[in-house]
């Protein structure tokens, strides 16, 4: 292994370790932060409610594409009545949690990172420390908890709208029977499928929020530093979401 690769691996290990330590500090700060639900609700609104439009639009179009592709595929086997089941499984188990997490990272994760990074750059975090207020408790923990709660809720919205989009194309456009579409969906879905989606969305919410808060908190306090931290949030969140998606899918098999 070359010296450069060794240094790269060491840097990766060091960063992972630091993120792990930050996660432990964050968890410890979450307990007192729960006593201030107003701050957490504000973050659920900022990160979650303000992402609703993009999540709903993306869910609708994803569902519509699923309806089209699914109908085309199932039509070859004469099994178009299974369209509802196929779309629901794809959305609940994979597309809903993964795409919501990726969209959340791009829309809310970047906003979290740049907001906290700018607070660092403008001495707001230092001012809190000097005022004997722990910024981990006041700034980091509410944003982490807000993201953790918002992502599963957004995933649920994505799934419902996505399923509606698939139904819109399959039933209204392609002529699949309305009753069969929903009856097949209802009978084929198991609780395990729903649980898998919920577990994934919670894990993705935690990971994306952790990465966003961590990058912002440790951003270099310059315009370039905050920009780089924002980019790292998107890249690391996307890669971790897809990696963990594989791990969790394998675990649920």
């Amino acid at each position, binding site marked *: 292994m070359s010296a450069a690769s060794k240094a790269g691996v060491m840097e990766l290990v060091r960063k992972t370790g630091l993120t792990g330590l930050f996660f432990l500090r964050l968890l410890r700060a979450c307990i007192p932060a729960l006593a201030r639900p107003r701050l957490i609700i504000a973050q659920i609104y900022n990160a979650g409610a303000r992402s609703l439009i993009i999540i709903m639009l993306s869910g609708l179009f994803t569902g519509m594409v699923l309806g089209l592709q699914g109908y085309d595929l199932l039509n070859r086997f004469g099994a178009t009545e299974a369209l509802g089941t196929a779309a629901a499984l794809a959305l609940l188990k994979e597309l809903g949690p993964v795409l919501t997490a990726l969209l959340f990272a791009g829309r809310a994760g970047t906003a979290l990172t740049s907001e906290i990074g700018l*607070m660092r750059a403008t*001495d*707001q975090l230092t001012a809190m420390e*000097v005022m*004997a207020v722990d910024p981990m408790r006041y700034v980091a923990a509410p944003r982490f908890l807000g993201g953790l709660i918002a992502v599963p809720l957004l995933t649920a919205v994505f799934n419902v709208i996505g399923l509606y989009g698939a139904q819109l194309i399959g039933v209204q456009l392609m002529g699949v029977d309305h009753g069969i579409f929903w009856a097949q969906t209802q009978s084929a879905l198991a609780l395990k499928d729903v649980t898998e989606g919920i577990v994934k969305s919670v894990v993705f919410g935690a990971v994306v929020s952790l990465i966003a808060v961590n990058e912002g908190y440790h951003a270099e306090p310059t315009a370039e530093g905050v920009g780089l931290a924002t980019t790292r949030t998107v890249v690391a969140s996307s890669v971790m979401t897809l990696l963990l998606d594989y791990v969790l899918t394998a675990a649920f098999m």
Partner: protein
Amino acid sequence: MSDSQTASAPAGAGDAVIDVRDVHYAVDGRPIFSGLDIQARRGLITAVMGPSGTGKTTLLRLITGQIYADRGLVSVFGRDVGTLGGTELYAMRQRMGMLFQNGALLTDIDVFENVAFPVREHTDLPEPLIRKLVLTKLEAVGLRGAAHLMPGELSGGMARRVALARAIVMDPEVLIYDEPFVGLDPISLGVILRLVKQMNDALKITSVVVSHDVQEISSIADYSYLLSEGRVVAAGTPAELARSDSATVRQFMTGAADGPVRFHYPAADYAAELLEASR
């Protein structure tokens, strides 16, 4: 007046609330302080002056326990800051107020909430009392009418006055100012200058003002320290510093471009470098 590495204590003053003794501090091997001695006496305005890059802000970070000295003692309220645990450090900080160079107001809440912030965090006072307290402090800095504005709507001078109201809202024993006069127009500067003096006189607060605005700070300081190259090069009352025959002090007090503090950053021979470039 002393004009040596070790400053003498200001005569006739109370006990030292802040005591910095023989402090050494380096960043990445580059020494910032090498044997720094500074005392801030109770009830006085102590000025810490020096050229840019002499570590004045670093000194404030040492005093507030954001960083720790490599060697030496930083004592505040009679306690060694370096030995304080998290809870004790926060308890010490609750007895201090700090005015940041840019105000450092929280940008997502309005002026009123910024001033109320420490009170809400550290007390369980009823809302009507918090309101009275905040309005009193805002009135003291002349910005009661701006209570509803967001920090982004304030001028630099107004932001600093709001930050001052926030710094005094918990009635601190010590107020620390980091370059309070930088970038202000003459009117705002005069207002801040008067406020610093008033806070000190009316509330009997011990003040430490870090600044390189010699004329302004000299007009209100009881005792001044001049830092250069990581240590105190002169200390005394502003009048004593003004009479000093030390070349370093005179260069700083008169704002001469060249002197013991060089105008040019160390570089290779000028003519040789130009010739090299034209080849």
